Each structure stands twice: as structure tokens, then as C-alpha cells.
């Protein structure tokens, strides 16, 4: 029972999916080209979205057209969790005559529903290579050899112009043979010109020297920027062209044709750009155009308020390099504050002047003036538009007045500051390292000195001796040599008291040494209290004698 329920559930699920799938079926038909030459094969495709595993539709018969068996493509993909099926049927179509054909509309029945397939039209033209040869052979058999198979030309409509006057340049590629591959095109260099190319190339049949050519042309508009002689360099095209064999058989055309590479070059073109004539009106900014018109619109048109912006929309339209036109000149606008002008290209060139009335009352909006050189009329023309008086109501808040007063200063331009005329020239040095490294050096020196004292002068005796000697020499200057002896004995005999007596010394040193110490003690005490002033030599002798004795006692004590 459970199994039966499961089977029923899956059948239900399958039917639901199928129903959902058939609900979104769409059918389209297309052909790969609108135009084909006689004998060429076109591809007619019918695409069914939303269904797979379906049989090919039956295409209605058309007189003069042969349909091949369809190639069928089927695919199922999963997008966002949903399965999407797609089937397409490609038919090869070959025409037997030169004519305009239509594959009529027909119905394609899918899952019990008819789907309408729209009609498709296309054109079959002569095979250029073959027809050209046939025509030429009929009229003049020698011409087939003389007339070029391919050639290029670059034409301009004017060779003497003014700056910004448009020049129409057309590049054409003529061929009367088939091409082996897509030709490589290097357009002409147009230095000194602003160049605007047409987005689409034109393709058509043309006759030259009794020959029919298939032509591809590209049009560009050039605007010379400055006066002088300008050169348009050659445009170059590289193509693989079918070599004519002279035989009109199957092996010498189409797939079996021999191809050779050719490089074609147009001629150099010289353009003389004349300077604009003298007598340009005041405010002329170099605009060159033809039959310019100026339209002006106010926004808002009424109900102007002090401190609220008014937009003057100006439209300049006519012929020429409209992109290059600068904004018209606004006459005196003392009572208005002007913001940056905005421009864009639409139907001509549009400018938006934003003005804010500083005061209330009846105010004259500034007049607009635009001067340009009309290359058609060959003279300067000034377009002027006066605007009406407007009534401006007072602002409701006083803050606006303050803001307007503060904005009286207007920055005209920005430039760098002037040079500095005085300088203290010096060579580049980094003093800061010195500030850091010198004290560090001092610190390291003293650390090393301490370490030296600690490790190399560690003998207490030497320290004592040197200490005493140092003090002795220092005291000697004050003729207080006696203190030297006292300090030495105190340090040597480790006596803590401030004062030291001979009896203390006697108790701590051997007798013979004591005698020497006693003699020295008495001598030095004598010097200490004597009124006799010691000479330099006497001081040196006493010091040397004392040093000698101290060294001797050091070794014994």
C-alpha cells in the first residue's frame, strides 16, 4: 500500500512538472542573414524554449527555396532550482533564383497547443564576383584584366575651411571579388582635428568604369582645431582577396578559390585651415558654426523670491561643432549671485545659468549675448536675447540676507603663490640623529668607564691609594696635606670616626711603620700650622714624598 502511495505521488509530481513546463513554452524563428548571394547557404533556426525531446516542425514549402534536414539541438539546464529545457532546429536554406523570399508563418503544435511561428523575409542577390566577370566579359573582355579587383578611396567635401568648420570625410572600400577573411582596417590619422565617426558603416552596390563593385563606406566629420595646413594621412586596409582564374567553374570560386593578401592605401589629403577674419566682436570666444539659433527659457517662469535660484536655460542649435560652443555671455548682473554654469548636449547645446536674486524688487535679468563666426555667410554674427523685468519678493528669513552679504567677495581664479626671494642655502644634513646619538655616546662612555673601574681597578688597595693620592693633591693646594694622611689612614685602617689620633694608629700598625707614620704625621702637622707659605717646589716635594711613603705602606699594611 505504501509503495502504491509513493508511485502515485511521483506520478502526480511528474505531471505537475510537465504541466508547469508546458505552461512556459515559447517558440521563435530566425535567419542568420537578411541578404545572401546566389548559391550561398542560409541557416533558418526554430528555437523552442521550455520543452525538450520534441520532433522537428514541418516547414512549409516555398518556391525557389530548398530546405535541408534539420540539425536538432536539445538542452536541459537548472537555473535557480528550476529545470529549463530548450530545443532548436537548424535548417540549411538555399535559393535557386535572385529574388526576395519569405518563409511564411505556420503553426507548430506542441503538447496539444498550437504555437505561431512568424514569417521571415530575406533577399538573394547576384554573386558579385561571378556577375561582374560575366558582365565585363560580355561588354569588353579586356576590362576584366584592367579594372582593379579591389581599391579604396578617401574623399573630403572641402579642402579649404575655417577652424571648427565641419569637413565630411568618407572612406570607401570597393571590391568585386570575394574576401577570404575579415579585412584589417587602419583608419587615416587626423591629427589637429576633432573627429566624430558614424556608428554604422554603409554597404551598397556601385558601378565604376563599367564594373559593379560591392562597397563598404564609413563617414566621419572632422573639425579642425587650429589654423594652418593639416594633413590627413592615408587609411590602410589589408585583405585576403580571391584570385580570379578566368574560369567560371566550381573549382575556381567559393571554398576552392585561391586567396592572396593585398594592402590598399588611400591618398594623403591636405586641408588648408584659414585663420578667422579680423574684426571679431567683443566677447567672441572662437565659436564657429552655421545658422545658429538661440532659445532661452526661465525656470520658474514666475513667483521669484529673494535668495531662491532662478534657472536660465539656453539652447544653441545649428550646424557645426556644437560640442565646442562655450556658454553665452551674461551682461551685468549686480543684483544676482551667479553659480556655476552647467552644460550638456541634447538637441544642440544646452546651458543652465543659475542666478540667485540678492535683493527684492523689480529687477532686470541679465541679457544674453553670443558671438560666433558663420562659415556659411563668412561673417561674424552676434545673437542677443534680452530678458524681461522680473518681480522678486522679499525673503522670509533674515538669514539669507546675511549669507548674501558675506558672499560679496568673489574668488576669480586660483594660482600658486609667488617665489620666496630670500633663502638660507645649506647642505642637506640630518641634525636630529646627532642630537640623539651624541648623548647616547656620552652615556655609553660613562657606562664603560664605570665597568672599567669595577673590573680593572677592583683592588681595594689601589683604590685607596689613588683616592688618597687624589685627595692629597687636591688638599696640597690648600696646604692641608695633613688631611691627606688622615684620610689615607682612616681608609686603610677602616676607622669610622671623623677624627683620628696617633694612639689609634699605634694600636693597629707594626712598630717600624708606626715610627715612619709618626714622623710624617708630625712633619705634616707642622706644615699645617706653620705660618710659612709653601713654594711650588716644596709642595711638589711634599707630595712626591707622601706618595712614595703611601706606596710603601700600601705594600705592608
Amino acid at each position: 500500500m505504501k509503495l502504491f502511495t509513493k508511485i502515485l505521488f511521483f506520478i502526480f509530481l511528474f505531471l505537475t512538472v510537465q504541466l508547469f513546463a508546458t505552461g512556459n513554452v515559447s517558440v521563435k524563428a530566425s535567419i542568420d542573414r537578411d541578404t545572401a548571394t546566389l548559391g550561398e547557404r542560409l541557416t533558418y533556426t526554430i528555437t523552442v524554449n521550455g520543452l525538450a525531446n520534441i520532433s522537428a516542425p514541418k516547414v512549409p514549402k516555398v518556391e525557389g527555396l530548398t530546405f535541408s534536414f534539420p540539425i536538432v539541438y536539445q538542452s536541459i539546464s537548472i537555473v535557480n532550482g528550476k529545470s529549463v529545457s530548450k530545443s532548436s532546429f537548424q535548417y540549411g536554406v538555399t535559393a535557386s533564383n535572385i529574388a526576395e523570399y519569405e518563409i511564411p508563418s505556420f503553426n507548430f503544435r506542441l503538447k496539444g497547443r498550437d504555437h505561431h511561428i512568424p514569417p521571415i523575409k530575406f533577399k538573394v542577390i547576384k554573386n558579385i564576383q561571378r556577375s561582374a566577370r560575366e558582365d565585363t566579359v560580355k561588354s569588353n573582355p579586356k576590362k576584366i584584366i584592367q579594372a582593379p579587383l579591389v581599391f579604396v578611396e578617401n574623399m573630403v567635401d572641402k579642402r579649404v575651411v575655417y577652424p571648427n568648420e565641419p569637413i565630411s570625410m568618407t572612406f570607401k572600400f570597393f571590391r568585386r571579388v570575394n574576401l577570404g577573411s575579415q579585412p584589417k582596417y587602419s583608419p587615416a590619422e587626423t591629427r589637429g582635428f576633432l573627429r566624430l565617426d558614424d556608428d554604422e558603416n554603409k554597404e551598397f552596390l556601385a558601378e565604376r568604369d563599367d564594373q559593379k563593385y560591392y562597397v563598404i563606406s564609413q563617414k566621419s566629420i572632422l573639425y579642425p582645431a587650429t589654423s594652418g595646413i593639416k594633413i590627413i594621412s592615408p587609411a590602410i586596409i589589408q585583405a585576403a582577396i580571391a584570385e580570379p582564374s578566368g574560369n567560371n567553374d566550381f573549382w575556381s570560386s567559393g571554398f576552392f578559390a585561391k586567396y592572396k593578401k593585398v594592402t590598399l592605401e588611400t591618398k594623403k589629403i591636405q586641408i588648408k585651415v584659414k585663420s578667422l577674419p579680423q574684426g571679431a566682436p567683443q566677447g567672441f570666444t572662437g565659436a564657429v558654426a552655421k545658422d545658429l539659433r538661440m532659445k532661452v527659457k526661465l525656470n520658474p517662469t514666475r513667483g521669484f523670491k529673494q535668495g531662491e535660484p532662478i534657472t536660465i536655460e539656453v539652447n544653441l542649435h545649428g550646424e557645426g561643432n556644437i560640442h565646442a560652443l562655450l556658454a553665452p555671455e551674461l551682461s551685468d548682473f549686480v543684483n544676482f549671485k551667479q553659480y556655476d554654469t552647467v552644460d550638456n548636449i541634447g538637441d544642440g547645446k544646452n546651458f543652465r545659468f543659475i542666478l540667485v536674486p540678492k535683493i527684492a524688487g523689480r529687477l532686470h535679468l541679465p541679457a544674453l549675448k553670443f558671438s560666433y563666426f558663420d562659415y556659411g555667410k563668412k561673417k561674424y554674427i552676434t545673437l542677443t536675447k534680452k530678458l524681461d523685468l522680473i518681480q522678486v519678493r522679499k525673503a522670509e528669513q533674515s538669514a539669507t540676507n546675511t549669507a548674501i552679504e558675506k558672499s560679496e567677495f568673489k574668488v576669480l581664479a586660483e594660482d600658486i603663490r609667488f617665489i620666496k626671494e630670500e633663502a638660507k642655502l645649506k647642505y642637506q644634513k640630518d641634525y636630529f640623529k646627532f642630537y640623539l646619538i651624541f648623548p647616547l655616546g656620552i652615556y655609553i662612555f660613562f657606562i664603560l668607564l664605570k665597568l672599567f673601574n669595577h673590573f680593572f681597578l677592583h683592588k681595594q688597595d689601589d683604590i685607596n691609594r689613588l683616592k688618597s693620592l687624589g685627595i692629597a693633591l687636591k688638599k696640597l693646594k690648600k696646604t692641608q696635606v695633613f688631611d691627606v694622611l688622615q684620610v689615607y689612614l682612616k681608609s686603610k685602617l677602616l676607622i669610622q670616626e671623623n677624627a683620628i689620633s696617633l694612639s689609634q694608629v699605634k694600636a693597629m700598625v707594626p712598630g717600624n711603620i708606626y715610627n715612619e707614620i709618626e714622623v710624617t704625621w708630625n712633619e705634616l702637622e707642622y706644615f699645617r700650622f706653620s705660618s710659612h707659605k709653601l713654594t711650588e717646589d716644596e709642595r711638589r716635594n711634599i707630595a712626591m714624598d707622601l706618595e712614595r711613603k703611601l706606596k710603601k705602606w700600601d705594600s705592608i699594611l
Partner: protein
Amino acid sequence: MNLKNIKNMIFIVLIFTSMYFLTNLLASDEYFKQANDLYAQKNYSAAAELYQKLVDQGLASKELFFNLSNAYYKNGQVGLASLYNEKAFRVAPRDFDIKYNRKIINKLHDRRFISWLELKAIFSILGGGFFLLLTFSLYFKNRKLFWTKIVIFMLLFITFSCLYYYYYSDYRYPKAIVISHEAIMRAEPNEDSQSLLTILEANQVLIYREKNDWINIYAPDQGIKGWTERTNLGKI
């Protein structure tokens, strides 16, 4: 050659060396004035040439860099103008004229409260003072000296942290400015390599490393790293 002769020779060499440096410095001042005159006469290219000569001699001052930057700017060499303005800014980050020109030429605003140079100076002086105090304290024991050392050490630590932050954010990789009309950044240090990016004149890049005539650079705005020829860049 006896000792007296050697002494005389040393004396003569010293005299000539001093004279050379004195003459050089006087000539430099004269060049600077001449360059200023040329600038005032709107002969910007000649002025730039003279200022550049002084810089090439190893002379440096904020005025020299500033004037050289101005001369290049007026002569239409925006990349070099930007480079020398940046050098002037590094020497004198608080100079109003330099800051103003930097805004116009380099389109840069200084957002730092204190400059790298100033921070370096503070760190050097604090460090120097700290080491002198340590030296004193080797021989003098004083409670006040101890607390002074602690305070200076803390200040030194703060300054070092700031300095490290500056270094990490701004100075870890040397900066350079594109001085040619445009610099092509390539994937490898050779001319046949794939072009990755074109950097226009006066833009700043970071230098990663150098190899012969090629420099490995990083364009921070685009986040692209590549190689360009040495002649395209001027190191700040």
C-alpha cells in the same frame, strides 16, 4: 719633506678648501638671485634650470625647493613641480605658501596635526635628554632625577609610538612622483612585458624595490603593483 713643510701644506690646503666652500656658497646665493630674476621675467625654463643646478650641488632649503617647484609648474612640468613641492613640504611642513601650493599642484591636503619631521625632532631631543639624564644618574642619586627620567621615558615612548605609526602608514615604502608625461606600469621589468596601467604625470606611487633601470611600484588608488622605468619617477 720636513715637519715645517707639511704644516705649511696643510695650512695652504685648509685655506684653499675654505675659500672654495665660501666661493661656492657665495656663487650659490648669486645663482639663486639670478634664478629669482629670471622667474620674475617669466623665463621659467631658465629659472628652473638654475634652481635645479643648486639642488644638484646638494644644497637644500625650503625656499629653493619651493621656487624650483613654482618654476616647473609655470613651465608646464607638473610632475617635477609636484615632486619639488613635496620636498619643500617635507622640509617645512608648516609653511603656509608651501601648503597652499601643495593644494593646487599636488591636490593634497595635510591632515596631520604634527609632521614626520617635527615628530622626529621631538623624538631626537627627548631621546638625547633621556640619555644625558641616565649619564647624570650614574654619579648622582636624586629622587627628583628619578621621576624626571620616568616622565621623559613615557614621553619618549609616546613619541616613538606615533613615529612608528607614521612610519607604518606613510614612510614604510619610499614615495615617488611620476615626472614623465605618463608612466606605463608593466608586469615584469622589461619592455616586452604586458602593460598593466598607465599612470599620468604628478601622481604618487610607492616604491617596493629596484632592479637595474626598473622600479617596482605600487599605485595605491588602483591597488596595482608593477614595474616602470626609473626615468619615469622622481623620488621624494
